[in-house]
């Protein structure tokens, strides 16, 4: 392909956020008159790539060419002037301004926006309404109409259909096709495989911040995309993994340690039910935004739920506060370690904190008792304390161990782990899997959400898949190969055979 004929080209884009590598070498080539899919599992770097191309973040490495000319944008406004406009995952509209004011703020013509909104099926929108008073789907369409009003040569849509009802999604497909016909390019990011294969002419697949491959529209491209998303390495990791654990053999009538019945928590959790037994690790898999965060928050007591019940050992719980959940023996290792830890304080204090949270523990702390408990858990987890006593000096993996250690020190019955190995090196990951297995072997129940599908085989007994706020699949670990999990997580039927 002639280089000059490309509308947009990004080569070897790299980006680091502190120590987390979001992009290593992502490349993307977009031709005029095509809809280009951008695929990849959670954390593969799709959104980061979009934000670098449109000037939200500066790149650490790589080059961007627009119509063959090297460019770099310092703000979305600059990218817009070069004909590159993005509709981001969350609407870029200011909540306290009216729709009309938002258009004026961004320098978009109200008439043009109204015209595109009409084409998108929204007639007679009152532009003097405040953005905060409008429903989310409408905001997405306004955002899209505003993007179209700038007549971009390259339109980037980052998961625009993720939270839209089917009829509005149809409108968007029609608009995307229309935009392609006018000789422009659309970069379309979506987790919905069916959507991508129906709409996109080609697709670039990212994996771990690297372009894993580009597919042309052809028969079986869905399977090829799944294969590219998984990669060859993960297959090897599974083969060499220490999956020595026995895996669920328990009587069906046993009482579950944790049972969630018909839980609803608007807007993302729509009736989730599952059971978790003592001595097992239940893996949970979902794409971003399928309600998993809200679900964990509900069980951990930091979010109120509308309907449904959470039972521990057959007893219904009233969770109003994380302290209630902790009192019931339910503890959380959150995705963001920074939320759980006191960065400026020494390790022993971090580990000892929950043990001294209750009012009955007020008064002087028995320092010898504390030290003994803390030291035994540090030893057990092999936390590397050489880096110093302040927590923030520890590596990510060691910080994560501190979060687990504090619960070991204070005791628990049910452990909720939300993506505990995100951004952690492979050696520490192994230690954490082993620890999770050990905790289950000692009789506790573990619920493990993970965005890395390999972890299911490495650490879990059973797996459930969440999609659209519901449990759509449940399987023993022997059947939970990555292709099956990934298909279920994309809302495809899990039984379809990979070719």
């Amino acid at each position, binding site marked *: 392909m002639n280089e000059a004929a490309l509308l947009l080209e990004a080569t070897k884009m790299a980006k680091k956020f502190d120590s987390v590598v979001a992009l290593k070498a992502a490349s993307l080539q977009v031709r005029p008159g095509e809809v280009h899919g951008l695929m990849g599992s959670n954390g593969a770097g799709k959104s980061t790539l979009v934000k670098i191309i449109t000037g939200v973040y500066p790149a650490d490495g790589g080059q961007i060419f627009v119509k063959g000319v090297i460019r770099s944008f310092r703000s979305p406004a600059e990218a817009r002037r070069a004909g590159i406009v993005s509709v981001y995952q969350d609407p870029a509209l200011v909540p306290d301004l009216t729709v009309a004011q*938002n258009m*004026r703020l961004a320098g978009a013509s109200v008439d043009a926006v109204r015209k595109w909104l009409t084409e998108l099926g929204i007639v007679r929108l009152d532009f003097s309404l405040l953005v905060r008073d409008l429903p989310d789907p409408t905001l997405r369409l306004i955002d899209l109409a505003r993007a179209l009003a700038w007549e971009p040569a390259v339109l980037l849509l980052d998961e625009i259909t993720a939270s839209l009802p089917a009829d509005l999604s149809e409108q968007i497909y029609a608009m995307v096709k229309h935009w392609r016909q006018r000789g422009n390019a659309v970069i379309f990011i979506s987790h919905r495989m069916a959507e991508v294969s129906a709409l996109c002419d080609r697709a670039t697949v990212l994996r771990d911040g690297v372009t894993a491959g580009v597919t042309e529209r052809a028969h079986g491209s869905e399977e090829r995309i799944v294969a590219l998303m998984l990669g060859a390495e993960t297959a090897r990791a599974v083969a060499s993994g220490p999956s020595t654990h026995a895996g669920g053999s328990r009587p069906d009538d046993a009482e579950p340690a944790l049972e969630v019945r018909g839980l609803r928590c608007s807007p993302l959790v729509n009736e989730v039910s599952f059971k978790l037994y003592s001595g097992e690790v239940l893996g949970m898999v979902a794409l971003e935004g399928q309600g998993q965060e809200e679900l964990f928050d509900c069980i951990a007591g930091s979010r109120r739920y509308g309907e449904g019940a959470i039972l521990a050992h057959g007893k219904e719980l009233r969770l109003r506060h994380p302290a209630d959940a902790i009192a019931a023996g339910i503890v959380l290792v959150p995705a963001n370690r920074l939320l759980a830890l006191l960065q400026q304080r020494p390790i022993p204090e971090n580990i000892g904190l929950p043990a001294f949270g209750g009012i009955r523990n007020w008064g002087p702390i028995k320092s010898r008792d504390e030290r003994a408990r803390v030291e035994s858990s540090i030893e057990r987890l092999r936390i590397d304390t050489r880096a110093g006593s302040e927590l923030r000096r520890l590596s990510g993996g060691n910080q994560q161990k501190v979060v687990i250690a504090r619960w070991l020190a204070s005791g628990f019955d049910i452990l909720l782990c939300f993506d505990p190995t995100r951004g952690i090196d492979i050696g520490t990951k192994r230690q954490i899997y082993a620890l999770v297995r050990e905790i289950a072997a000692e009789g506790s129940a573990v619920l493990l959400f993970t965005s890395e599908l390999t972890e299911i085989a490495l650490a879990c007994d059973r797996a459930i898949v969440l999609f659209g706020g519901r449990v759509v699949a449940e399987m023993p670990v022997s059947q939970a190969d990555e292709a099956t999990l990934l298909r279920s997580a994309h809302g495809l039927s899990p039984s379809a055979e990979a070719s």
Partner: protein
Amino acid sequence: MTAPAALNIRLTKRLQRSLRRDPGLFFMPALLIVSFAITVAIHPQFSDFDLQSLAMGALPLAFAAAAQTVVVIAGGIDLSVGSMMAVANVLAASLMEKASFGQSLLLALAVLIGGAGIGALNGLIVVISRIPDVVATLTSGFIWGGVALLILEKPGGGAPQEFLNLGTGTLFTPWLPNALVLLAAAVGVIWIPLRRSKLGLQLYAVGSDRIAAFRSGVNIDRTRFAAYLFSGLFSAVGGVGFTMTTGIGAPLAGVYYTLSGLAAVVVGGVSLAGGRGGMLGPVLAAFVLTLIPTDLIFLNIDPNFGQVIQGTLIVVIVMIGGFVDMERSRK
């Protein structure tokens, strides 16, 4: 449907909408009327003179509130408002002491420009150094407080009588104090064009959601800088106004206005989280906050006890505002 009826419906709709958007817009006038009614009830001989002294007393506070409002709307805070007022006040009083009326007007203009400059400096510090705005403006407040003392060690200075008459006299009728006209004119001339400009929109946008504003193409740093510049300008107007109404420069008087101005902002329905509220609320709140101690004096209440009552009233008013807001967001 007849044309006037349609117009009427449209007006009602607009009124409803602006009520929803900015409850302070209607809450504050109501509160001010109530406070007036109470004042007249406990002090039936309320005269034109009382109104004049109220207007003069509220003038600096109203400008302090206006200065703070611009920054708070943009999602920041300015704890140097009082010190900037003090600098403007002593600068005006010491420079104008022997000036003619014409010269004093020019000097006033120069002081206003200087105030805007000080505000701009604040803005630069906040935007470039990335020091949190609370810290940056608190410390710069100490600096300018010291500068005010360097300019005028103790209360003194003065201004030509014609200049003072601008602040203390009345217009047309003794019931329309010049101070009130001055306040309305200054706030109107600075705020209304600003509010309607693109910059005004950007101030609200940056205060409401900085990321969304950035993605909409707003230059965040420039907008925040402008907010502090206008804060300095309003503070300087307040300082010059203080000179006008009192006839002297008082280097330590400004300290009081930082926090009571902030109280007026909050009472006036401007969200400290940014992006919400208007200018009318805080300015009217300045009058309410000036009326409360006046009423307590009329009632012959021990001034120390009066402060407790005043604080309690502020908390209650802000709480009511908070409940109204909560009710609104629940819908």
